[in-house]
């Protein structure tokens, strides 16, 4: 086993969704004979079902490989897998910071996509050497030459070597491995300097607490050593150090250039934040590694169990999930309409969707999730600034000076034939045009600024449908900007249904209110009295409709043969009634809320 720092290569694989990142990783694992054929499952690094199904990697992982070159050289490869979605871009950037190089995978048929560009930018920011891989050349629709042309248009890739591969049949992978040795520099740093280790991930284990994945930038760490997390200056004693092969395997120490893990009795993962620096507590480094930031949720929604009895299961599930995902936040709340639930915060829409699915799948909890909201910065007249993530908690309008909302830079890569449709959509969502570039004759890259709020509802689906599935997008939050925003409340029989309140641009309030009122009218069953449904801004009603009183609910025929069947019908009707939620005097089936929240 090589031990010299010159023989280590630390790298990541980055790619747009479905371009073959995990399959490439599998082939690399095979060729380095790190794991046996018997152990091999497709996409070894992704071990959550959901990751397999969605074809994305949610949490980053690492694996240590031994590679022997044909001329007898031996190298240690540390492959750090990264999450493949914009919601996790901070995690991606920290994983990249633990590397010296990256393999950028591009689908030979689909070409450069929005995330490809975002990935390149992130890799360049971390000064990585990039090796380009045009993958899936086995496809009949593959067009590597076109992809080469597209790559030329991306700044910063001029000196990167390009390889053609088929991860499916293994073509080109060996060449990539040799390129890793040749093009990716070995780590630098000194074993004699005080310890500096970058945390790029952590997982929770009920026996050992938080297990920290790290890259040693300087110095050495071993069990028994006193260490400190630099963001909060807390001190711990290392209990175990190890590497990934690919399962965790104890080693005596980790030294400069190494990628591995350590445990030190961290009670939970909020103590081991991604991007933080671990140092020697006795001889601390003077400097933290750059790039650390506190990650806060940007998208919030309320989640309620469909069955009231599931509340405690939901609470337990959220506790469990947040053990391994410090980006989830949750707070108990209650609603007259939906019962007891939680206000939850996420890194983005995909993150939210994944958590909702995991709750439903792994914990078998059926959920009602409210429309997601961004975090608004409300500037009050008394100069106080408050952040709200729930429209219903917006203060009285006469106390508000102005409201700011998060803006994003949106990048869409698309066939140019769809430019008109997509631009129209984005403009309708308050988009501000920033840039348009052609990647080749018929593909373009479009950049807009727009409020994050505008992509919360029905945006991805619209993009996909307008572009027939060919557009890809990526975004990042850039800043907060003041907007003429207003809160709309929905009233059912004069009672505000707080879960249906929303904040939106003044010009869009009427339209959206009217739609919501009409939707509600169709899903609220008729009661024994007229039920007015209203939308209001402050005290002004801007839309209304009425669910007329139920007058007739009668079974005409009931003779000898009918009784059992009629009774069953009534029992069913009654069971439905029992499940209804009450808003004031009005009984509303939960499905009604669900369908309104969906339609929205």
């Amino acid at each position, binding site marked *: 086993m090589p031990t010299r720092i010159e023989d280590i290569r630390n790298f990541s694989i980055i790619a747009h969704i479905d371009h073959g990142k995990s399959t490439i990783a599998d082939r690399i694992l095979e060729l380095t004979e790190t794991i046996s054929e018997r152990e091999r499952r497709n996409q070894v690094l992704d071990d959550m079902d959901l990751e397999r199904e969605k074809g994305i990697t949610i949490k980053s992982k690492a694996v240590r490989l031994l590679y022997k070159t044909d001329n007898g050289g031996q190298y240690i490869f540390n492959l750090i897998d990264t999450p493949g979605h914009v919601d996790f871009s901070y995690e991606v950037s920290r994983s990249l910071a633990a590397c010296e190089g990256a393999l950028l995978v591009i689908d030979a048929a689909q070409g450069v996509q929005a995330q490809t560009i975002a990935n390149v930018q992130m890799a360049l920011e971390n000064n990585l050497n990039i090796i380009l891989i045009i993958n899936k050349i086995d496809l009949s629709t593959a067009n590597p030459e076109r992809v080469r042309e597209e790559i030329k248009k991306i700044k910063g890739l001029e000196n990167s070597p390009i390889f053609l591969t088929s991860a499916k049949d293994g073509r080109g992978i060996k060449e990539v491995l040799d390129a890793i040795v040749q093009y990716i520099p070995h780590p630098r740093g000194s074993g004699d300097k005080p310890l500096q280790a970058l945390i790029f991930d952590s997982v929770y284990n009920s026996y050992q607490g938080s297990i920290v994945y790290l890259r040693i930038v300087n110095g050495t760490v071993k069990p028994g050593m006193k260490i400190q997390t630099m963001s909060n200056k807390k001190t711990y004693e290392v209990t175990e150090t190890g590497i990934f092969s690919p399962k965790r395997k104890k080693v005596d120490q980790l030294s400069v250039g190494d990628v591995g893990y350590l445990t030190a009795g961290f009670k939970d993962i909020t103590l081991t934040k991604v991007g933080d620096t671990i140092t020697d507590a006795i001889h601390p480094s003077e400097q933290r590694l750059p790039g650390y930031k506190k990650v806060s949720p940007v998208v919030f929604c309320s989640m309620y169990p469909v069955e009231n009895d599931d509340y405690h299961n939901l609470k337990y599930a959220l506790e469990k999930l947040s053990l391994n995902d410090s980006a989830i936040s949750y707070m108990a709340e209650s609603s007259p309409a939906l019962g007891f639930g939680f206000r939850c915060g996420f890194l983005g829409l995909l993150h939210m969707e994944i958590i909702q699915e995991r709750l439903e799948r792994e914990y078998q909890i059926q959920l009602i999730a409210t429309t997601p909201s961004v975090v608004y910065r409300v500037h009050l007249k008394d100069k106080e600034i408050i952040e709200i993530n729930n429209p219903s908690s917006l203060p009285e309008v006469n106390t508000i000076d102005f409201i700011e909302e998060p803006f994003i830079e949106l990048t869409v890569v698309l066939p140019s034939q769809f430019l008109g449709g997509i631009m129209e959509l984005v403009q309708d969502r308050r988009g501000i045009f920033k840039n348009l570039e052609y990647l080749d004759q018929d593909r373009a890259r479009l950049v807009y600024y727009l409020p994050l709020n505008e992509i919360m509802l029905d945006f991805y689906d619209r993009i996909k449908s307008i572009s027939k599935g060919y557009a890809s997008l990526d975004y990042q939050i850039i800043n907060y900007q003041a907007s003429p925003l207003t809160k709309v409340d929905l009233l059912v029989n004069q009672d505000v249904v707080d879960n249906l309140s929303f904040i939106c641009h003044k010009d869009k309030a009427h339209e959206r209110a009217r739609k919501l009122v009409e939707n509600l009218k169709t899903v609220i069953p008729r009661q024994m009295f007229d039920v007015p449904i209203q939308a209001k801004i402050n005290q002004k009603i801007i839309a209304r409709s009425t669910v007329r009183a*139920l007058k007739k609910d009668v*079974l005409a*025929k*009931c003779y000898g*043969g009918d*009784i*059992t069947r009629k*009774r069953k019908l*009534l029992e069913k009707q*009654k069971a439905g009634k029992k499940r209804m939620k009450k808003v004031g005097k009005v009984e509303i089936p939960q499905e009604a809320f669900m369908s309104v929240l969906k339609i929205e």
Partner: protein
Amino acid sequence: MNFIKLGLYIHIPFCNAKCPYCSFFSIVAENELIKRSYLDALKKEINIYRQKYPETVIRSIYLGGGTPTTLSGPLIVEILEICYKNFKIDKDIEITIESNPATFDFKKAGIIFQAGVNRLSIGAQSFSNKLLKNIGRIHDKKEILNSYHIARAIGFKNINIDLMFGLPGQTIRQFNKTLEEIVQLHPEHISLYGLSIEPGTPFEKLFEKGILKIPSDDIAYAMYQKAIDFFNNYGYEQYEISNFALPGKYCFHNRIYWKNQPYLGLGASSTSYIKNIRFKNFSDLNQYIYLLVNNILPIESKEILPLKEEMAETVILHLRMMEGLAKSEFIARFKVPIESVFAEQLKRLKEQGLLDDNESHYFLTRKGISLSNIVFMEFLD
């Protein structure tokens, strides 16, 4: 010990054509032979029950369907004669037959009247040829009037006419006209049914596809309210949610159901209710005949009603009648006052204005009649 008084229902599962809204069990018979085999099976069924309940007294006979009058006159007579022969029959028994105007003529009317049928139910449904066509009836208005006048000429003194509202294409104005026409005939009894879209019927499919359009609930409600007032003005008493009659002409047989009293149902798909056990025959002609050929009762399912459910059904069924439920009746049957079982429900429904009571009875209010499902649901779990 086995002495029971029963209403007797006999199902005749044959029609000349299937109506697309109807969910009752019936088939279009391919030939007369199948009717013969059915009758033989029916005979066997009666035989088995005679041996099972030798002391049975029959209080009413109701030939329903299907369309009983698709049978020939002699076959209908044969059925009645088997009943007379095998069971003790109450003096002044009410014997009803359902008929379709297209399958009813002078000769048949005479034969069945002679055989003891004393109540005729005419499945008119509407007096508009257009609406009759819309709902797939095989007869027209002229045939309705013919049937009615034939029955009168033969001597029937107790005639019911079935009427429907909320039909596809029906307007309030059209319905009013039908009301006028029916009272001019002056039948003793009128059954008024709102069209309901039943599962498994062709109408259900058409309705779901949006091809079939029926009047809104509000219009159907207006028709129903109009009919109640209109019939009242002409001396018809609404004695049940869907039934109106001149004084003294309530249907005895159907009141057995609503009083939750025992009845025996014969024939395919029929239901019986004897001593808190409800059982139902197979709704499959071959199965029904095959089992009886082998001397096995063709019972498909059996349900023993727990006390609480029997109580609930007793309340619900009685409340279908405008007279409602006699408080003394409940005590006589269950040995406890109704208030000790359903106090909360009774209170709530009274507060909602759906139910009322006086010294002797609980009964639906006018509002409660139209919202009776909401009332009935309260008594169920």
